[in-house]
């Protein structure tokens, strides 16, 4: 603080608290709605918690929402988890070894491969929806976990992050390893991988959120309701014809859909901030 202005201190805290309230408001209302019975939410607003917290959550976890296909939310969460972990682990594995090849080796067509990988940065799924769908369909990967994860696994961002980091590894380290007789594989496993630990942790947080929150892709390639992920499952719950819109169950599902990524961000806040800042560099 540069000068002492008591009034300004109050204004500052006031604005921040107001901001917090506005940001948290939708979540609060959703959580409140998820604790009520269906009848309580017809044409009325519930400002305070109801008594059906456990019933509602158990209902959606066990049997889902009957009017919207009745897929248990626990199944959806399991699918989302597999997808998120598959994308996280797969992306980190393939990008760390390709970055290793690009930085620590000299070989013909090195830059050519570098540019092929670089191109993917410019082509998010959203802009090549139909042809990618066709490829996955031709490979027979519709409604499979492989189809959910593989097309999202290649990414230039992770490769770049590792490349940037590898470039900062001192040459002396490589020389020392070579003098001691370590080959490329040994150097990678015993020196480079342990050094990359914090970067891998930071990237994992970001990729887990990215994978869990995927929406368009699972929407396209899963027609089998048993393969529904939770984020797209909510959308199916919204549009139910000729039935009481069971907002309490929909909101309970929304809370469950947010829970894992939000918990990851709160628990691993340091890695999250590091990952966010570094993937954008």
């Amino acid at each position, binding site marked *: 603080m540069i000068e002492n202005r008591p009034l300004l201190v109050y204004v500052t805290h006031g604005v921040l608290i107001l901001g917090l309230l506005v940001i948290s408001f939708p979540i609060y209302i959703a959580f409140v709605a998820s604790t009520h019975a269906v009848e309580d939410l017809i044409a009325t607003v519930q400002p305070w918690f109801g008594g059906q917290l456990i019933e509602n959550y158990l209902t959606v976890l066990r049997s889902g929402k009957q009017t919207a296909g009745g897929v248990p939310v626990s199944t959806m969460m399991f699918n989302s988890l597999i997808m998120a972990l598959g994308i996280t682990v797969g992306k980190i594995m393939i990008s760390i070894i390709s970055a290793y090849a690009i930085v620590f080796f000299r070989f013909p067509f090195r830059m050519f491969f570098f540019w092929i990988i670089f191109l993917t940065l410019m082509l998010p799924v959203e802009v090549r929806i139909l042809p990618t769908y*066709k490829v996955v369909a031709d490979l027979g990967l519709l409604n499979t976990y492989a189809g959910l994860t593989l097309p999202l696994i290649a990414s230039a961002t992770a490769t770049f992050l590792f490349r940037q980091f590898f470039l900062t590894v001192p040459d002396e380290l490589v020389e020392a390893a070579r003098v001691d007789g370590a080959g490329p594989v040994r150097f990678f496993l015993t020196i480079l991988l342990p050094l990359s630990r914090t970067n891998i942790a930071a990237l994992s947080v970001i990729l887990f959120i990215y994978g869990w929150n995927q*929406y368009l892709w699972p929407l396209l390639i899963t027609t089998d309701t048993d393969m529904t992920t939770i984020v797209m499952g909510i959308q199916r719950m919204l549009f139910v014809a000729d039935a009481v819109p069971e907002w309490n169950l929909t909101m309970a599902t929304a809370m469950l859909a947010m829970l894992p990524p939000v918990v990851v961000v709160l628990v691993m806040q340091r890695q999250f901030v590091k990952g966010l800042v570094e993937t954008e560099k």
Partner: protein
Amino acid sequence: MQKRVTFRNLWLPYLLLAPQVIVTLIFFIWPASQALFQSLLVEDPFGLRSEFVWFQNFEELFADPLYLDSLLITTVFSISTTFLALTSGLLLAVMADRVVKGAAAYKGALLWPYAVAPAVAGVLWLFLFSPANGIIALTLKTMGYDWNHVLNGGEAMLLVVLAAAWKQIAYNFLFFLAGLQMIPKSLLEAAAIDGAGPGKRFWTIIFPLLSPTTFFLLVVNVVYAFFDTFGIIHAVTSGGPAGATNILVYKVYADGFIGLDLGGSAAQSVVLMAIVITLTVVQFRYLERRVQY
């Protein structure tokens, strides 16, 4: 850039690159080239024959009032979302930067909406504004305003902008706060001694010094509004009412998967690719400049 010391091996680097290159070729390069090729074809309704028509699909696209509408809607949507998310993020970051006590607590509490999926953010806001039982919609009703985004295009747009901006504030807040903390305190103290108040200090010192961060966030937010908001639109309005929230990404999906107009959808994909590439190049050129600071 390249390291001085490298390993020598004939086949290992190719083996290490193989997984990523194979996935990239199968799921990125091949489909993208298909989209490019398809955008030059017209297919008959049964998908039996296709004819090479050069740029006819593009000509039709830019003559189509629905597409031009969608372009305009996307512009309005991304400008409003970006503006709202940037100003709120900046305001909160400036305030959090001033706070001495409890800064970490505020930071933690403001970060987590980033982790909420766009589609889920959309559903939360949809519930707040649900005409039958949404708390905000019913409050507006008691004040004499009849909110119904299912019928009113402007209200639908406002709703998706609010949901999209709400999710993005956390991101902007984080980057603005990092930018603010890099500004040397001595500059601000010198200005204060010269008699500049907090407002004057903000506009003449902090805001100009923050401009690299602002510009970077501008690009990121526009990309977000263009591409990552598909879930919000799809879950909340499905492009409606009467196409009032039919942004480009949603239109590619709707025309291709529901309308089955393959050539037209591919042409739209190509236009989108051009937009992404332009934005990426802008971002990278700017990033190079920032390195020299």
